[in-house]
């Protein structure tokens, strides 16, 4: 796995797993890779992967079934989308709006872009 230079690795792995849930590689109830397997897959220390899993668990995206492993929770997709939407609205959209204004792009142009 190629990592971005400036984002904590555990967050990048967290987002990687969220992505796999969103794109259907993991479905509701699926058992996800063990910490160990994921560490080998992404080439990262198991402690780091453990942190990603703890974060996923604290957000109820995955559930720890003792002795069995981690499973995708029932409303994992909604939770991820909700979080990512919030982040988009608060962090990315204001930047985009700034650019719309800077380039003088009208609402009409934007509407056209979205419709096509």
């Amino acid at each position, binding site marked *: 796995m190629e*990592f971005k230079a400036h*984002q904590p*690795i555990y967050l990048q792995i967290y987002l990687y797993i969220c992505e796999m849930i969103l794109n259907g590689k993991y479905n509701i109830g699926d058992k996800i890779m*063990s910490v*160990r397997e994921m560490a*080998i897959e992404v080439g990262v*220390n198991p402690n780091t992967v453990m942190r990603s899993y703890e974060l996923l668990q604290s957000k109820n995206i995955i559930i720890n079934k003792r002795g069995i492993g981690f499973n995708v929770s029932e409303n994992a997709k909604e939770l991820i989308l909700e979080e990512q939407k919030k982040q988009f609205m608060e962090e990315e959209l204001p930047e985009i709006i700034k650019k719309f204004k800077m380039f003088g792009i009208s609402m009409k142009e934007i509407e056209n872009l979205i419709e096509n």
Partner: protein
Amino acid sequence: MITIKNLDFSYKNAAVFRNISLEFKKGNIYGLLGENGVGKTTLLKIICGLQFPNNGTCRVDDFIPQERNPHFLQNIFYLPEEVITDDTTPDVYVNKLGVFYPNYDYSYFLNLMKELEVDPKRKFNALSFGQKKKALLACALSLRTEYLLLDEPTNGLDIPSKALFRKVILQHGVTTDTTDLHRLPTIIISTHQVKDVENLIDPIVILDHDEVLLNATFEEISSKLFFEYGAEKSDEALYTEQMPGGFINVIPNKFEMDSKVNVEALFNAVRNNKKRIKEIFNN
């Protein structure tokens, strides 16, 4: 667990360690960092019983390494930086070595050699330096000891081999069961090639002339220090390093901000601010 308490060590009149104390907890892959000559190799030798402390103690679980109890020795392996150059083959060598280690796994050795792309039947003196390093790594791993001490294991490896090194270390276990986190060996990797092992190691120990400057997990480091990647130098930074497109500032983390630990910048920040770092991490 490895527990070192108030340990002194010197070679004749040259003091290497003065009253150092530190712990290595089980099941972790430790990175042991430090400039040349600070005693990384010496520390590994003390842990495996090849050197004896002048004062203080080193314990590995219930054992004192210098007593060289066979039950201790069969569960620890130290892989020196230097390679074998004679006319034995890795295959012959590992089978001789394996006699002393009850968990020794020959088929695992063969798999590792395949994965690392070295011919086990080729004599050491006919292998390139990198191939020798990889062959000896395979020998060391195949003993499946609980403790594994690797001295500069990535020295002389080419880029693809470095990636293979990380992979085999992460796959490695005391047993063949790869799902069990509790059966992970304790590995200490001494290196000054930080980039090679940056994502592999956690915790990090930084040694200096006669003291331990840092022994902390990535989580602890990122809670104490903030690594700011930006266009400008920061006045508050303990250390600033120029990089393509800007600077890395290592700043005391006052606002509990999350950031990516850059181990090279960390190393330099620690080296240039020994006292401050100790204060920051002891709070």
